[in-house]
């Protein structure tokens, strides 16, 4: 096994970081648009949101808060993988592919980059949590959970972007597939209020379990167990399995000879 795995993965990771910091519009885009979403939807839906099954009264702004964090993760991590399409077009990728770098290191560096960026933005937003009465005392655990979800999402973006030759195609997938995936994961409304068929779709959506895992991490078991979300073990299990599965798929895809 090559000892250069971590060295090359970390080089690719640092490159992602530097590029992101240089593109200020990306930072603003990935952070500001979910913030606006949260404010507008939060105020708009406001008091009309009153899930019957909640044991504890929860305003919509609070309900939607972890959902917004998830949206930030989705936007940042998925958009970070668009750079694969650019790397291929602009030629950077060709040089990496003829370097003595294990393909798994290439994938890992890229995913770690997307995960770090998503995590940074997610944590920044988490600092607003006290405003809606969410304690940030469980931040370390939450961070871990956010990282896990972000890793899976970045891997998903990678798998989509790898075979794509235009960023337009990627945006189409984002709108047709990724945004609905987020809408139907319990980020915007709970499954309990949805019609039966939609509830089935939500149950089949792997992100539903990522969302639940984040809520478990933010609220702790005492509060989370009263919410209408999948159980703790199931949430973590599916989230880990999803991230691992897509990660392996990404490596497999990258190894395929051209």
């Amino acid at each position, binding site marked *: 096994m090559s000892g250069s795995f971590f060295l*090359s993965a970390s*080089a690719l990771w640092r*490159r992602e970081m530097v*590029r992101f910091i240089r593109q200020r519009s990306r930072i603003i885009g990935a952070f500001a648009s979910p913030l606006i979403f949260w404010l507008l939807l939060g105020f708009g839906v406001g008091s009309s949101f009153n899930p019957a099954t909640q044991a504890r009264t929860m305003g919509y702004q609070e309900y939607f808060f972890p959902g917004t964090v998830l949206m930030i993760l989705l936007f940042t991590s998925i958009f970070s993988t668009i750079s694969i399409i650019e790397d291929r077009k602009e*030629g950077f990728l060709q*040089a990496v592919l*003829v370097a*003595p770098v294990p393909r798994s290191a290439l994938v890992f560096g890229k995913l770690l980059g997307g995960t770090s960026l998503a995590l940074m933005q997610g944590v920044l937003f988490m600092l607003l949590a006290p405003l809606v009465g969410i304690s940030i005392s469980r931040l370390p655990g939450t961070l871990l959970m956010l990282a896990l979800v972000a890793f899976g999402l970045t891997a998903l973006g990678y798998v989509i972007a790898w075979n794509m030759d235009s960023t337009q195609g990627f945006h189409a997938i984002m709108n047709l597939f990724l945004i609905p995936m987020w809408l139907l994961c319990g980020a915007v409304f709970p499954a309990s209020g949805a019609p039966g068929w939609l509830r089935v779709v939500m149950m089949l959506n792997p992100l539903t379990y990522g969302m639940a895992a984040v809520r478990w991490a933010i609220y702790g078991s005492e509060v989370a167990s009263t919410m209408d979300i999948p159980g703790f073990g199931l949430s973590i299990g599916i989230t880990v399995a999803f991230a691992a599965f897509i990660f392996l798929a990404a490596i497999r895809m990258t190894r395929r000879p051209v």
Partner: protein
Amino acid sequence: MSSSLAVQATNLTFDYPARGKAAARRALNGVSFDVRRGEIFALLGPNGGGKTTLFKILCTALSPTNGTAVIFGFDIQKQADEVRRRIGVVFQNPSLDKKLTVLENLRYHGQLYGLRGGELASRVSEMMERLAVADRARDLVETLSGGLARRVELAKGLLHRPELLILDEPSVGLDPGARHDLWLYLQRLREKEDVTILVTTHLIDEGDRSDRVLVLNEGTIVALDTPVRLKEQIGGDVISIATKDPDRLVGRIREKFGITPTSFNGTLRIEKQAGHAFISQVVDAFPDLIEAVNLSKPTLEDVFIARTGHRFWEDK
């Protein structure tokens, strides 16, 4: 396995699969050749002749449909990482990250090749000095001119001290001065550091600057030798005759002199010893049919024409 060989290519064949409306296409058809250690070896041919496909196969970016190549004793497919460690690759299209500085590009690239710490730092500054880009180290690559960026590409390709440098059309987009510098540098690299250089080009004069030239046309080798020997095979001078009636003139020359000229686009072409003497004979014989006559020493383009029956740039 002979250690004097840098590259041994055997029967390399590559088919591009059918895609959409484009039919499947054979880009390389059983190409075999050796590159010796320490030589400058040119793959010369018109665009679409298969050079870039061959380049991609040799730098392990593409797997051949058939055949194989061994680089410094390592199989390009089975031991790709061993090959990759030993080759430096300079692509035709830029491979630098435009959003990073020159320094960052070189640093990250060095790490991909396992360089780190002091060795990495000294190697990066050494290469920047040598290619005279050190004063731009902290500039973003997108602010560099084409010639400067190509020098950074070269620095990047040489960072890990490759034994073989493979370049795809390195002088495309360079002005004549920068092209000249590039070739001086390649020659120095070969002499001072014993780096073997394999370069693809569509420029005849770059073939002339190389130790040996492989002429590639439609995926097959049409000639392989030193430029001097290839030109010697042409047999004397090259005479081209412009005429309004090529078919008739071909017939008349054949009748009178027993030579069959090749003809294209209103120009007849004849290879002949003592061309100057022949010219006066032919002009005397058919003054009405001849518009202009030109006598020249053979070039690699003449080699190409002699072997393929068509011009280097002619569309078929």
